[in-house]
């Protein structure tokens, strides 16, 4: 299974490599040089590498949460808004702790809990609309994303604006005692790495070795039979949404406490949407989520220098990511057709 997925990703990579090269040639850029810039911009130095890791962390966290919703057959497109609300709840908690350096760690801990709650709340609204109101979770999620963005901007330009001036650059930077501290050499707060590792392990255990994981899979595979087995699809859908929202909220928290140290309008940086692609490309496999997220993070960071060095738009990374996912989805579709054909033959 995992070998097949890896092989498919390999084929997709080759196809996308050829396609991207074509795009580069057509736009008149030297392909080799562009790839070099991408590589050096992401893995060329320790500093660059740590920047990639900083992107990898929220991608992986969102990916973990999305595994729960995908498992039960939900498209939690609202993950983007859940990241934003997680960041809002974090900021709210940290603002309360401002000016009291002696108990700052307490507020950081509280902000972690608040972000999980906030993200879960936001996802819970979509889940509630889905299970009680019959609203498709994609539409509910998309709508809530806009609402979250609105809330975020209103806070930054309204109640939480910097003294004297409201600015796109976000709220006032928090005092350093409210930051997750990173050793100078490592450049990444060790706590964030711990949180991601814990998230990956917890997700893997929950999905593979507990009733929750099995029941999510059962309902995702056949909601109408699940009832016969005494399962409650609505409750489990809500639970999956809460998990997804919780992880996304956590990602929002780390964006504030470990990366920007303030609330900015682009706090979620589209990492939620990107995580949807990561999980799809990983074929909903927990083992592949971390490496695929790393690859995507590398592309994101690596493409930052493209405009400066090659006068190429940095959206090249988006082209590659989008093409990759399309290629993978195409391969999944192809495999399903082939499988169906074989099964149809066998059933005769």
């Amino acid at each position, binding site marked *: 299974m995992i070998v097949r997925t890896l092989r498919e990703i390999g084929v997709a990579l080759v196809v996308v490599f050829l396609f991207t090269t074509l795009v580069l040639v057509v736009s008149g850029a030297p392909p080799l040089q562009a790839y070099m810039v991408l590589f050096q911009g992401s893995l060329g130095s320790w500093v660059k590498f740590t920047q990639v890791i900083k992107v990898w962390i929220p991608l992986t966290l969102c990916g973990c949460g999305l595994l729960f919703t995908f498992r039960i057959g939900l498209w939690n497109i609202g993950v983007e808004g859940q990241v934003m609300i997680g960041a809002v709840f974090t900021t709210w908690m940290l603002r309360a702790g401002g000016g009291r350096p002696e108990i700052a760690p307490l507020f950081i801990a509280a902000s972690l809990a608040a972000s999980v709650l906030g993200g879960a709340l936001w996802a819970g609204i979509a889940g509630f609309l889905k299970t009680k109101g019959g609203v498709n979770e994609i539409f509910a999620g998309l709508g809530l994303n806009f609402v979250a963005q609105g809330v975020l901007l209103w806070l930054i330009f309204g109640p939480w604006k910097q003294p004297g001036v409201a600015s796109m650059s976000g709220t006032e930077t928090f005092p350093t005692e409210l930051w997750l501290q990173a050793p100078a050499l490592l450049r990444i707060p060790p706590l964030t790495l711990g949180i991601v590792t814990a998230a990956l392990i917890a997700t893997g255990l929950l999905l593979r*070795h507990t*009733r929750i994981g099995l029941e999510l899979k*059962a309902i995702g*595979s*056949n909601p109408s*039979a699940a009832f*016969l087995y005494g399962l409650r699809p609505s409750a489990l859908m809500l639970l999956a949404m809460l998990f997804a929202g919780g992880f996304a909220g956590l990602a929002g928290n780390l964006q504030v406490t470990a990366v920007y140290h303030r609330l900015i309008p682009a706090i979620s940086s589209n990492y939620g949407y990107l995580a949807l692609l990561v999980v799809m490309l990983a074929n909903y496999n927990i083992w592949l989520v971390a490496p695929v997220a790393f690859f995507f993070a590398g592309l994101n960071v690596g493409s930052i220098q493209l405009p400066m060095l090659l006068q190429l738009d940095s959206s090249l990374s988006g082209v590659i990511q989008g093409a990759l996912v399309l290629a993978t989805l195409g391969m999944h579709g192809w495999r399903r057709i082939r499988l169906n054909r074989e099964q149809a033959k066998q059933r*005769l």
Partner: protein
Amino acid sequence: MRVDLVDIRKHYGFVKANDGVNLSVAPGEIHGVLGENGAGKSTLMKILSGFTARTSGSIVVDGRPVDYRSTAEAFRFGIGMLYQDPLDFPQMTVVDNFVLGQSGEVSLRRDAVQACFQTLADSFNFQLNPEAPVDSLTVGERQQLELLRLLSSGIQVLILDEPTTGISSAQKELLYTALRRLAGEGKSVLLVSHKLEDVETLCDRVSVLRLGRVTGSMVRPFDTEEILKMMFGARPHTPMRSAQPAGSEMLVMQQVSSSGGRCGLVDCSVVIRAGEVVGLAGLEGSGQEVFLRLACGLKRPQKGAIRFFGRTVLNNKYNYFKLIGAYFLPTARLEEGLIPGLTITEHLALQDERRPFRVDYAEAAEAAARRIANFRIKGLPQTSVEELSGGNQQRLLLSFLPPKPHLLLLENPTRGLDLESVNWVWGHLQSFSRNGTSIVFSSPELDEILMVAHRVLVFFNGRIIMDIPASAASVQEIGRAIAGKQQTTS
């Protein structure tokens, strides 16, 4: 048109679905193809219809070898197949579906097509409303539509795969008449079935397949014993009704009404006693499915009371019924009963209620292996349920039942099973009923009901219009009730 199939082989890896089949159909002949599940009859028919490519062998039409790669090409040679599940567009109207089958013309002359449809339908006595959406039709009516569509495009060889499954006896009669007429017009008809009775009443000749080979062929008059021997090697024993129990009241329904299905359920009052086997007869969708779902709590009644062991059931949720020992097995095994994509092991883990949090997959795999052995399921613990055959899926569902349930509610429990599996299933179910379990089951086959049930309830239009002991029932009497000829309820 004369069709000869010569040395047809179809191999799937090591599996030989067809292993050198020779079969000939003469013009004007109704040719029955018999065989148990997996004998290779469907494969053979799908090869003839162009749906499946053969590994080797040749198809000879009127003395001329032909080669085609798709159903469309087979169509051009005049060969068409009526599939078990009609291939139509449910949201569109009858006449639109009819038009879609017609070849050629870009512009549609609706009036002309409708008139043509009406003439054809009338000539067969098919009562189809041309403007009705197809998803409002019964299986039998959809089959009639499909048949008309095939005929209007001028086919000469008609293949039917289990055409009498799920249709009413009136529709069956119409179908028989239509097929006899087609044969009279010189068309060849191939009828695949596992129902001996169908084949014996209709066919001029039968061929029996077993394990991918033709084991024999016979012309009218048929010797049932001989045919069974060709199908199974030896005559399978038929399950018999167990002795009539005199148990206490178990499930009581009083004036229960509910919506759902084609006609809902109206004013249903019934008493089911312990150890009783009750057969629900009637046209498909006459209220039996609503009755079963109400009895197990999958549906709530709009009116009336349901009592289980003398206690009024208020909290009708399926879990509650399961707790007190009522179990339901739906007919749509892969749609409602099992979870495609999950393995046998995972199904057992899902039902292990002793473990609220962690799942012990090793233990579940052992449990799966035990059930597989006890219920003679052809599969492995790690086999996904959708890979099992229908018979094995049913065995698996039965293996999920606890050792001593109080009430079993079974919706068409032998649907699509071959005779051997049917016997096995009933043998197993009767061992439950000997221990005091009540069994309520629906079935479109009156024979099956009369063979195993103590009591027959006949449903018509959402009402129970007949309730008699099976020993006192005559087929004619029940048949009349099924067709809606009202009688006094005893």
